[in-house]
């Protein structure tokens, strides 16, 4: 799995922004908030969250509305809405480009883009310094009918692994709790559990982190795992953000 590429806080006018590129998907995310909310949407003890997903081509369709609902419900559980009551957090996600093979894979395209949208939205929220409960990592697992499960497959890999039996999107919080699961296709509970375990390994940090280091052989295995770990990747993004913001300090 290739690690996603991210540029953070690059839009001038938005309070927070992030551009995210992974597996041929490129998405620009912008967050404005906390700002004044329309009287009609105001909630007395909570912040209102508005998610706008704009497709790469054309205007939004029911597919985008469906993605917005999924994102809204997931992000609501990680934004500390009660600390900024009667305000609005506006999240706009513009899909910039999709992989060429996207439409020819013949599978549910709202599932394949969901992890990328979640990551972009989260990074933009991070950039806007909106108070958050926890971090969020997400991945896609495809279960082909013939070969082994595919972890965060590219559109090309999906095309070659046809027919795909089922697809699963998992999102985990920083402390390893499942935040979102969207599945499509026919699958048994065992298959789902296998996919869930696989996603958890990629998304969450290793449990024994910071503990006693094992022998040399294990270290190497660790190294391979680390390159695929999304939690570690997220921490790297956070570190580069903080270093960028603190760079004047090292100069003086």
């Amino acid at each position, binding site marked *: 799995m290739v690690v996603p590429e991210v540029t953070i*806080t690059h839009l001038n006018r938005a*309070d*927070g922004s992030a551009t995210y590129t992974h597996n041929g998907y490129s998405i620009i995310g912008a967050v*404005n*908030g*906390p*700002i*004044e909310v329309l009287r009609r949407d105001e909630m007395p003890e909570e912040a209102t969250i508005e998610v706008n997903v704009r497709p790469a081509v054309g205007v939004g369709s029911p597919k985008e509305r469906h993605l917005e609902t999924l994102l809204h419900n997931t992000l609501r559980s*990680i934004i*500390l809405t009660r*600390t*900024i*009551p009667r305000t609005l957090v506006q999240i706009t996600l513009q899909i910039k480009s999709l992989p060429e093979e996207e439409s020819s894979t013949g599978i549910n395209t709202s599932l394949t883009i969901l992890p990328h949208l979640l990551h972009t939205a989260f990074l933009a929220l*991070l*950039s*806007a*310094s*909106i*108070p*958050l*409960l*926890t*971090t969020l990592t997400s991945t896609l697992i495809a279960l082909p009918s013939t070969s082994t499960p595919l972890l965060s497959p590219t559109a090309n890999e999906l095309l070659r692994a046809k027919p795909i039996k089922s697809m699963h999107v998992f999102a985990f*919080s*920083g*402390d390893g709790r499942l935040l979102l699961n969207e599945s499509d296709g026919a699958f048994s509970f065992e298959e789902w559990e296998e996919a869930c375990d696989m996603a958890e390994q990629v998304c969450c940090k290793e449990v024994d982190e910071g503990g006693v280091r094992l022998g040399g052989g294990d270290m190497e295995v660790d190294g391979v795992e680390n390159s695929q770990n999304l939690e570690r990747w*997220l*921490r790297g993004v*956070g*570190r580069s*953000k*903080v270093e960028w*913001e*603190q*760079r*004047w300090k090292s*100069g*003086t």
Partner: protein
Amino acid sequence: MSATTTTLVLPGDEIPASALPTGTGKRKTLKLGPGLRHIPPSTVVATVAGALVTDSKKNAASVEYNSGRYLPFPGDLVIATVNSSAAENFNCFLTPHMPPATLPHLAFEGATKKTRPQLPPTSLVYCRVVTAGRDSAPELTCVDPATGKGEGLGMLKGGMLFKVSLGMARRLLAPKADLPLLDILGGKIGFEVTVGRNGLVHVDGGTVKITLAIGQAIQTVDEQALDDPGQKKLAAGILKNM
């Protein structure tokens, strides 16, 4: 451990008790600044991504970050824009698209019920945040409540407003943090700089040329994060063009 140390935190990171300062003597209770959340009984969790800053002298901890929108805190010095005048107060904006903050007519030096200050819309006021609860509009004042004096607060006349990052504003307002750029320029030309914690800098240099040069120089230092030699070079270039 030195007086101030920094480490990276992400939202949801629990701050171990060993990383927090332990109170001694009078300052027994730990103070949590922006970016930290206390979950009873004794858990401290970060809510934003930034650098954890602890100060063992003041027994305080906070997360330092330089992005996002300005949120008012009591005691902050801000530059507010007057929007309208109501019966008892002015409605002012601290940041765009936020509910207005209130600035009472009587919160000016020497203001009485008979002599109220007249501020037309869009005029700039340098003021202090009095209250900023999450359940009410922030309240501003232009006088020191103890002395009733202005202490430099009040309407800003002439000059021009420049936008800087929140971190830059904090850096300019920090005690004993002098920008070499302003020191050097101030030795040669006269100008007035007012810094608002809400990411605004008001510069009045008398002439448009000086005002623009100084305002843009401050923005350059902010964008490029110039260190001391870089600022000295920039200042020399500006003085040459004057």
